């Protein structure tokens, strides 16, 4: 009897709660726009993604203070998919179907993006993806504000081949074992071959997510580098594995002047946990560095520092900005502009309005959303690690580069269209 009564009570209570929730929602819905934030706040990717959540919240706060979008305030809905790829799909479904958000900013790893794609396609949602990735994808429901391979990986390798980069002749392609490193390395291998590098001069090596013992791999790299040709390492290691990797690199005495390591997933944020003195000279390729000097960037850095202090983030006095944070910031602003142009948050209308949007980014360039291919035109920078964990820009492109999501170095891509298939 007791349980039965309890059950009744619970049912009444929960239905009441649902009702009140619905009621409050319909009141709110009139003057607010819901925005989903889908970043891992725990697990192996938290090292990188937590800062993106903070950037998104900061940008939303900034937009709200300036009057919101079309006079409506933005309401962020934050979920934590916990570096768990299937959970990403569940949380995406929750954001779209249950919370009814109009747009989602999120994901870091490609495997998580691949996991949410079917959900966004099915429910016709809108995703802004802020991280450099391997390309080979063009979806109507996604805008890619990070770099495609020709905006990051290829220029970085070309730099290392140049005289200033050390004229590397042998290559170690090292990565975490999932879709982004595997595809990027496939593209790089084809690119290197087209430049006359033999297969024997390329070593490909993968580690699981969260791998923390890099002794063997460093020893292998040392051996591989001792074959008489200048060797460079291209690292697509993702997440917190980078910390033990760079620690081991420093301890083993592998200096950047002997074997430079260029990383595509390591920025200012990832280096916060590492003593960078032994790493001076190792490289990273991005479309933005905190050390770039221009008024836009000064404003952006100050805004984030103030935000960190206000939110009392851990180590708020040492926060840094990095490329995916800039891409998040740019993405949210471009979405705002597109909504205002479309005068609606309707996904299809916003997608149409996104084409050709421009925004003056902290990288110092005016970035343009491509008319057709959902990718940003971005400048490319190559930086060397300094003793203080910042990067010294040693090379950059003259202007923004148009993205090639279908890399010409993969066979069959020449037949693919540069526009997403509409439904």
């Amino acid at each position: 009897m007791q349980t039965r009564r309890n059950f009744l009570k619970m049912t009444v209570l929960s239905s009441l709660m649902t009702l009140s929730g619905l009621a409050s929602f319909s009141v709110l819905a009139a003057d607010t726009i819901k925005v989903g934030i889908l970043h891992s706040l725990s697990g192996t990717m938290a090292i990188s993604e937590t800062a993106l959540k903070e950037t998104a919240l900061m940008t939303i706060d900034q937009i709200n203070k300036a009057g919101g979008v079309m006079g409506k305030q933005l309401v962020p809905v934050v979920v934590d998919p916990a570096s768990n790829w299937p959970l990403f799909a569940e949380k995406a479904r929750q954001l779209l179907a249950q919370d009814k958000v109009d747009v989602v900013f999120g994901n870091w790893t490609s495997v998580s993006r691949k996991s949410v794609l079917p959900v966004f396609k099915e429910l016709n949602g809108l995703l802004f993806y802020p991280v450099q990735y391997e390309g080979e994808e063009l979806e109507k429901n996604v805008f890619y504000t990070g770099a495609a391979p020709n905006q990051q990986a290829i220029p970085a390798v070309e730099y290392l081949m140049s005289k200033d980069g050390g004229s590397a002749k042998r290559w170690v392609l090292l990565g975490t074992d999932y879709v982004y490193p595997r595809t990027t390395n496939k593209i790089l291998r084809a690119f290197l071959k087209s430049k006359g590098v033999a297969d024997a001069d390329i070593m490909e090596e993968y580690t699981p997510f969260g791998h923390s013992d890099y002794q063997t791999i460093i020893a292998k790299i040392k051996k591989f580098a001792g074959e008489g040709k200048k060797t460079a390492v291209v690292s697509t290691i993702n997440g917190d594995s980078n910390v033990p990797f760079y620690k081991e690199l420093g301890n083993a005495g592998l200096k950047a002047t002997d074997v430079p390591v260029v990383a595509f997933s390591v920025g200012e944020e990832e280096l916060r946990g590492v003593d960078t003195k032994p790493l001076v000279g190792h490289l990273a390729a991005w479309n933005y560095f905190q050390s770039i000097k221009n008024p836009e960037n000064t404003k952006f850095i100050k805004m984030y520092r103030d935000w960190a202090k206000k939110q009392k983030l851990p180590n708020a006095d040492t926060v840094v900005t990095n490329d995916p944070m800039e891409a998040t910031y740019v993405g949210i602003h471009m979405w705002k502009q597109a909504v205002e142009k479309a005068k609606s948050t309707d996904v299809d209308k916003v997608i149409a309005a996104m084409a050709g949007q421009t925004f003056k980014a902290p990288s110092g360039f005016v970035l343009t959303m491509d008319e057709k291919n959902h990718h940003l035109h971005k400048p490319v920078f190559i930086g060397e690690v300094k003793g203080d964990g910042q990067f010294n820009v040693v090379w950059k492109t003259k202007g923004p580069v148009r993205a090639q999501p279908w890399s010409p170095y993969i066979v069959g891509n020449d037949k693919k269209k540069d526009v997403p298939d509409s439904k």
Partner: protein
Amino acid sequence: MKLFFLALLLFGLPATNALAALDPALVKQLAAEESDDKISAIQQLSADASPEAVKVLKAMAEDALLVTGETVFILEGEDGNLALDAATGKLVVPAPKTYESITVNNRVRSTLTNALAAMRLFDPDRAVRLVAATELQSNAGIEMVPILARALAKEADAEILTLLKQAHAQANLANPDAAARLAAVDVLAKSTSPASRGLLLPLLEPANEPDVKVREAAGQAIKAIESRLVLGEILGQIFSGLSLGSILLLAALGLAIIYGVMGVINMAHGELLMVGAYATYFIQTLFRATLPDYVDWYLLAAIPVAFLVAALVGMLLERTVIRHLYGRPLETLLATWGLSLILIQAARMLFGAQNVAVANPVWMSGGVEIMAGLVLPWNRIVIIGFTLFVLTLVWVLMQKTRLGLFVRAVTQNRAMAGCVGVPTARVDTLAFGLGAGIAGLGGVALSQIANVGPDMGQGYIVDSFLVVVLGGVGQLAGAVWAALGLGVVTKFLEGWSGAVIAKIVVLVIVILVIQKRPQGLFALKGRSVDN
């Protein structure tokens, strides 16, 4: 550092005025756009090894050589507010407000380090010369031949002389004179450095080396060097295996005791490691705030703290939850798994979801070169030593103390031990605390090589169980052999097949072993074992 600058200021200034200043055109060229110009300027400036040149190049290597418009200067003084012109050493008036440091990329840096090292070869201090000569062991170019020859002529110390000869030979490999190259190859053949092999390999190709004699000499030299290198490589793999094994052992030792005594499958064991690692982080923060001078020794203080904190958490878990579930393995498994989630979330709420930075103390950074091509990182050496220490401690505790006797008795036959008056409930709590405390010690070690975050323990729980299951229950020796064996096997497999495959193969091996010997490699024999 400040003192050093002050000294430079006091003594350097008058000296600069007295001595000839640097060529202003060359100094300006250091700030050139093209790396080639920078490099040629560095080489010309370093040619006469004057103290002014040393100072300017040193500043450049430290990103402290600044440029504004046409002026190249260095900031000095107590607060770094004195701008000194790099060429003349005179004060720049007015002091520049905006400036940039001269960009040094890897190519320029390599020339710069070589130039600085070469200039230090003439230092009166033997230690300074030795370091400089060691630095020149990789990538000394042909342009360094004259300065190296000069240093060789002056050097008296035998050790430095050997190093210099190698560097000289290395630089001479690009000499257009075939005889000089041949001599260089002969010198390098005697060297033990793996870098020499890399330097000699290109000489095997006719395209790079026109002279047949030099090619043949290089071929022989490479063979000689390779035979010396193989040993180093194998030793290196064994060492990394031992290192991994010692970490596995630290992670699994506590589990072995808990599982051995109480038969509890403690899924929260990984989180006890995490507690130890966070205790280390906490002590580090405390030292930084209160005892900044002794920050390098925080690790020693962290050891007892981590042990105690983890032991207390462990005993708390045992008293409140686990003791009510003895004899019900499935329920304990679920309950401890729940506890692990609670502990992870607690850490997340206390310290944030992101990893925290635990720095290696200075004495644990870097490595020591045991032999050619074999660098052993200090942090791993220290951890192997620490594992030995913990192992000894546990052994003494188990074999020589009354508590150890009780624990062993309960492990072997709980009912009988209870009959003869062993307070089994209290032994359970203490043994659980001991196991948890050892996990805390493991956490201290892990904090030095892996990431410290709320879910760091999850990565070790499976490995720890592998060790315990493989080694067999109830014996320390089992855990030791299983951990070291797994470590060495994993590392050899990794070298051969990559980390992902290695992990799978190790699991398959363990499954096969368990099928053959379900009781593990080292089970207790005899009728005393329960069940």
